[in-house]
C-alpha cells in the first residue's frame, strides 16, 4: 500500500526483501546504505540478535527523486529469514508494494530457497496478496562461492513467473542496485496502472 500525500507531494512505497536465513538480505541493504548519497537516505535501523541475525527487521528509507512533481520515497525492509521467525515475517509483509526474493545460490541451500518461496506465497496470501501478481524481482545471491547451482536450474525452480532476475554478490555490490532499480520500476508501473495496493 503506497501512501500518497498531495499536500506535501510525496509518494511512499514499501519494498520487502524476503528469502531464507543467511541468504544476504541484510547485506543488500547495507550495501545500498553505504553507496547512497547521505542526502538521499535516512538512517538504517537493524533489529538484530547479538550474532547479527535479523530478529525483527532492517529498515532503510531512500529518496529517489521527483516524478511528476512528487517526491518518491522507498522504504526498504528485510524480514528475518530463520524459519521460526514466521510470525515476524507476516507482520513485515503488511502493506507491501513490491518484493525482492533473495535466493542463496549454494547447492545445500536449494531446499531452503524453495521452502522460503512457498512461505512467501502463503504469508502474502494471508494478507490478501498474490505471489503470482505482486511486483516481484528475484536475486540469485552468493554467485562468488564455488558450490553454486546453475542459473538455469535456479530459474526453473524459482522463477516460474519469469520476472526480472539478477545474479549477485551482495557484499561487493554486484547486482544489488540492478535488483533495487528493477523492483522500484515495477512498483511505479503498478502505481501508474492505478491498481496499486
Amino acid at each position: 500500500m503506497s501512501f500518497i500525500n498531495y499536500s506535501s507531494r510525496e509518494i511512499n512505497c514499501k519494498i520487502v526483501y524476503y528469502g531464507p536465513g543467511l541468504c544476504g538480505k541484510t547485506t543488500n541493504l547495507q550495501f545500498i546504505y553505504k553507496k547512497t548519497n547521505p542526502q538521499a537516505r535516512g538512517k538504517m535501523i537493524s533489529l538484530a540478535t547479538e550474532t547479527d541475525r535479523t530478529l525483527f527487521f532492517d529498515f532503510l528509507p531512500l529518496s529517489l527523486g521527483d516524478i511528476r512533481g512528487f517526491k518518491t520515497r522507498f522504504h526498504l525492509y528485510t524480514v528475518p529469514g530463520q524459519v521460526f521467525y514466521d510470525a515476524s515475517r507476516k507482520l513485515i509483509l503488511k502493506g507491501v508494494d513490491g518484493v525482492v526474493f533473495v535466493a542463496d545460490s549454494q547447492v545445500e541451500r536449494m531446499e531452503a530457497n524453495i521452502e522460503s518461496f512457498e512461505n512467501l506465497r502463503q504469508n502474502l496470501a494471508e494478507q490478501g496478496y498474490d505471489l503470482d501478481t505482486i511486483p516481484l524481482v528475484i536475486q540469485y545471491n552468493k554467485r562468488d562461492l564455488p558450490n553454486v547451482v546453475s542459473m538455469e536450474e535456479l530459474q526453473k525452480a524459482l522463477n516460474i513467473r519469469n520476472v526480472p532476475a539478477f545474479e549477485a554478490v551482495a557484499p561487493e555490490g554486484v547486482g544489488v542496485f540492478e535488483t533495487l532499480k528493477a523492483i522500484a520500476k515495477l512498483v511505479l508501473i503498478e502505481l501508474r496502472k492505478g491498481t496499486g495496493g
Partner: protein
Amino acid sequence: MRPNLVLYEEEFNLVTDVIKRLVTSANAKVVFLVDKNGQLITSSGHTEGIDTTSLASLTAGNIAATGGLAKLIGEKEFSILFHEGEKDNIHISIIGHRVILVVIFDERSSLGLVRLRVKKSGEELEKVFAEIDNKAGTDTSGLGVDSPFAEITDDDIENLFS
C-alpha cells in the same frame, strides 16, 4: 487488499490541525501520526533533532509486534501502549484500527492529562479518516480518476535512477 492511503490537501490540513492542538492541550513535546505500515503522516511540536522517519518505522513495528501478541492471547489488539523513560515518556494509541498516534511528553505533563487529550483528539481523527475512506469509495487504487500517476512515462521512471 487495502487501498492506497491518499491524503489530499484538505484532509491533510484537518489532520495536522488536530495534531497541533493536541501538542498544546496535552502539554506534549511532540506528537506524530503514523500509518500502520510505518509511514509518517504528519507531526507537530519539537521535532528538531528527532529522526522522524525512524521513529515512524519503529512505532509501526512496535504496534505490529504487540498486535501479534494480542492475537496470541485472544485479544483483538492492544489499543494503547505506554513507555516510561527517565525524562521522556511515550504514549502510543491506535486510532480507528488504521493509524497510530504517538505523543512524547516529559514532567511538564502527565499520563492522566495525555490520556484524556488523546481520547478527544482520537475521536476527531477517526472522523477525518472515516471521511477519507468514504472519499476513496470504490476506487481500489484510492487514486481517483485524475491521478497524476496515470501519466508516468517510462522515461520518468528511468530518470529517477540516472
